[in-house]
């Protein structure tokens, strides 16, 4: 019976090839666009370090003035001051890792005059950064606490820089210059893909940091600090200058600008929170933290959720793509109806000859599933090209400052998305066909035969 139905379905598909094709095209176009957007949202919302992302917390403490406004959301809360950063690093808690960073930039150059200097973005970090965020090393390793505390001039460079400056050879032990400072390379990172640069809270995709240096060295040599400085009124007017000047004043100020992270196992979160609270209380006793004590520990998952919810382009695009898909499905309903109702006579004859409603439904359902399947296949092909198109648009609109390798994964179909697209395609086609099939199988038997 199934194969008979299947044959009938195939026959019916071939009957009006233009209409069949139109239905498939309508579904495929809608689905293609829908999958394109869904893939982009999916890929940009994938949280890195998935195995421990819920244990990696951003720490924010409210050290602001008494006159400051209440914040509506954690994301609006200030980061950490330099002195709190150093104090918190003194906390000893087994099992808990803490790390902090800020951004800088510099001109990387080598003695070899044939290689032109490169300006690039970089991260200023402490020694635990590399273990907490599990950066992959191609050569060498991170630095230890002693190196850091000694203010040694060491640097870790990215694979890209290693390729450009040293032709890809193992450059550990060699020297590189940031502006005029000479630093020793102790490690080379392998390709470290992040869908967005979460660790400095910029959440920017596509511009990986190209070197990493110890915070002590960066501070001692006053490398630029690309940060937003949330200062008290006393320093508000010069807060911009803290990027390059007034280091001494910055270190002792209440300006918050360092991104502070803690990796805390599930069982210790309450302890850790308490410890931070008691730190804040002890500082309050010294006259700091004038507001009601408040702190935020926000794990990576929650931060990703928040940031992705605010992606304006994807949101707009998402709404339009969903509606677009709906319009395409409405079209499919109309075309299917037209296609099926042509078969009134045949169906009423078959019904008159004893075919059950169920058989008619089965036959047409099969036909619709085949249409949905083909629409799904074509839709996935369309979304592949859609994603390629979006990738190229992104690269074009960044004026080729983003490298394809760095953002390509954001526009990559995977099995989850392909599976989803198929399921969506078939389910939606079936839903679209409910009314046309219902109309058709309710044609009274023999009603169409009268005048022939």
């Amino acid at each position, binding site marked *: 019976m199934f194969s008979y139905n299947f044959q009938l379905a195939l026959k019916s598909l071939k009957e009006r090839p233009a*209409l069949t094709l*139109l239905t498939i*095209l*309508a579904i495929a*176009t*809608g689905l293609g*666009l829908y999958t394109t957007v869904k893939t982009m949202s999916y890929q940009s919302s994938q949280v890195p370090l998935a195995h421990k992302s819920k244990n990696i917390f951003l720490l924010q403490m409210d050290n602001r003035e008494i006159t400051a406004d209440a914040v509506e959301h954690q994301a609006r809360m200030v980061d950490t001051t330099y002195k709190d950063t150093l104090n918190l690093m003194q906390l000893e808690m087994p099992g808990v890792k803490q790390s902090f960073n800020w951004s800088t930039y*510099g*001109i990387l*150059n080598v003695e070899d005059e044939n290689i*032109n*200097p*490169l*300006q690039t973005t970089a991260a200023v970090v402490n020694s635990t950064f590399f273990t907490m965020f599990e950066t992959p090393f191609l050569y060498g390793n991170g630095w230890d606490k002693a190196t850091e505390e000694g203010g040694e001039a060491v640097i870790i460079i990215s694979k890209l820089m290693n390729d450009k400056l040293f032709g890809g050879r193992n450059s550990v032990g060699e020297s590189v210059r940031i*502006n*005029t400072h000479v630093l020793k390379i102790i490690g080379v990172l392998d390709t470290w893909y992040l869908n967005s640069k979460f660790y400095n809270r910029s959440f920017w995709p596509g511009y990986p940091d190209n070197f990493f240096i110890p915070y002590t060295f960066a501070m001692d040599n006053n490398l630029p600090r690309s940060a937003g400085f949330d200062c008290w009124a006393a320093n508000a007017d010069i807060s911009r200058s803290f990027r*390059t000047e007034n280091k001494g004043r910055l270190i002792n100020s209440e300006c918050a600008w360092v991104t502070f992270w803690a990796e805390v196992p599930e069982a210790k979160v309450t302890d850790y929170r308490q410890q931070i609270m008691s730190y804040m209380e002890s500082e309050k006793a010294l006259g700091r933290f004038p507001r009601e004590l408040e702190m935020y520990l926000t794990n990576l998952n929650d931060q990703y959720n928040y940031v992705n919810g605010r992606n*304006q*382009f994807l*949101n*707009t*695009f998402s*709404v*339009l*793509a969903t*509606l*677009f898909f*709906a*319009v*395409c499905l*409405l*079209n499919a*309903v*109309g*075309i299917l*109806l*037209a296609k099926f*109702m*042509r078969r009134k006579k045949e169906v009423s004859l078959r019904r008159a000859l004893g075919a059950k409603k169920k058989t008619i439904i089965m036959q047409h359902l099969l036909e619709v599933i085949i249409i949905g399947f083909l629409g799904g296949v074509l839709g996935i092909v369309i979304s592949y090209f859609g994603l390629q198109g*979006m990738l190229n*648009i992104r690269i*074009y*609109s*960044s*004026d080729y400052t983003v490298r394809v390798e760095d953002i390509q994964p954001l526009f990559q179909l995977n099995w989850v998305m392909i599976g989803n697209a198929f399921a969506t395609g078939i389910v939606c086609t079936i839903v679209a066909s409910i*009314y046309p099939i219902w*109309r058709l199988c309710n044609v009274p038997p023999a009603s169409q035969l009268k*005048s*022939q």
Partner: protein
Amino acid sequence: MDIKPIFLGLKQNKFMAMLMIIQIAFTMGVLSSSVLVATTTLQEWNVPSGIPHNDIVRISPEFFDDNQDVGQAMFNDLKRVKDIPAVINAAPSNAVPFTAENMIDVYLATEEDAQGFKTVVFESDEQIIDVLQLSLIDGRLITASDVVKGEIDSTPQSASEVMISQDMAKVLFGDDSAIGKTIWLAKSADPVKVIGVYSNFMTGERLNGRGKSYHSIIRPQVKWSLNQQPHYLMRVEPGTAVALLEDIIDVFYLERGRYINSSELLKRTQKRMYDGRGSRALTFLVLSLVLLIITGLGITGLTAFQVTQKRKQIGTRRALGAKKSDIMRYFLTENSVLTLIGLVIGVAVTLSITFELSEQAGQNFFNLGVLLMTALLLWVVNILAVWFPAKRAANIAPAIVTRGA
């Protein structure tokens, strides 16, 4: 023609009518939302630059070595670059057209409540006019003797005469001549005198986004420090810029301890200025077009189906004396009635979508003209979509009824 039979016909086939209406309403919603987003994004897009941007090269070098003499380097740079035969002229400038984002307020008075006028100041030497090929509209050009040059810390004095752009002059002084007038580049600053008015050129996206693309001031002064080094603008023989770029970069690398931050044709700077929003808007417009095609095909399919359904009635009407044009008109009117209802609902859908999007983006997307244009476009597409099946319907022979089919 009586509209009554159309409603009767629609009543008979409620589902079809509903389907068509919903389809049109949704299409209208999606189409006009994306067109509205696109047009808002494309405001002030690719407006004339006022300069030969294909033949101007921009270089932004930067010393990372603190032991360099920027003033001497500038002197060397300009000399070396002008020695390249294909380079016609060069000028240092603190800002670059298309990326001049350092917006300030200029004032006609210093009172507390004096109104500020947004503008950007290009600090450069007398060659800038020739490099950018600006023409003199009024007054006189700046000359070499007007230019104040020096290291920032050791040069406290500033140029006291400026040139302003045509649009700037219009905004500040209306139809009066700007020549000899006094303006303030900041309320606390010394006044400066306008000595000339030059033709408009594009400043950058920040002013452009405010509809003040051409508001600029040229101040004849070149000041520098290690933290603040000028850019260079060079006009080259037409068509040679691309080939010359590498040579020019090499010239700038002759100074050691330096890094070339940016080196490009102004054409590319211009492209970058419009890129982000341009490609975004185009994405939406392409989607709109695809959607329009799909809906058009869908409507054609539905109407074709109805024509097949109504063959007998059509034959009868024709047999009773209806002309071909009557049949055509029937289908076109029927479709228009549905389209109209669909469009009304569609406008409501659009309003809610654009309201939501505007809330999210904090930017107003709504524009009545665009909305009406989209509605009209959708109507035309619908008529086209119905035209062909309706034509087929009109060609049904009256004899069909007599066949007893």
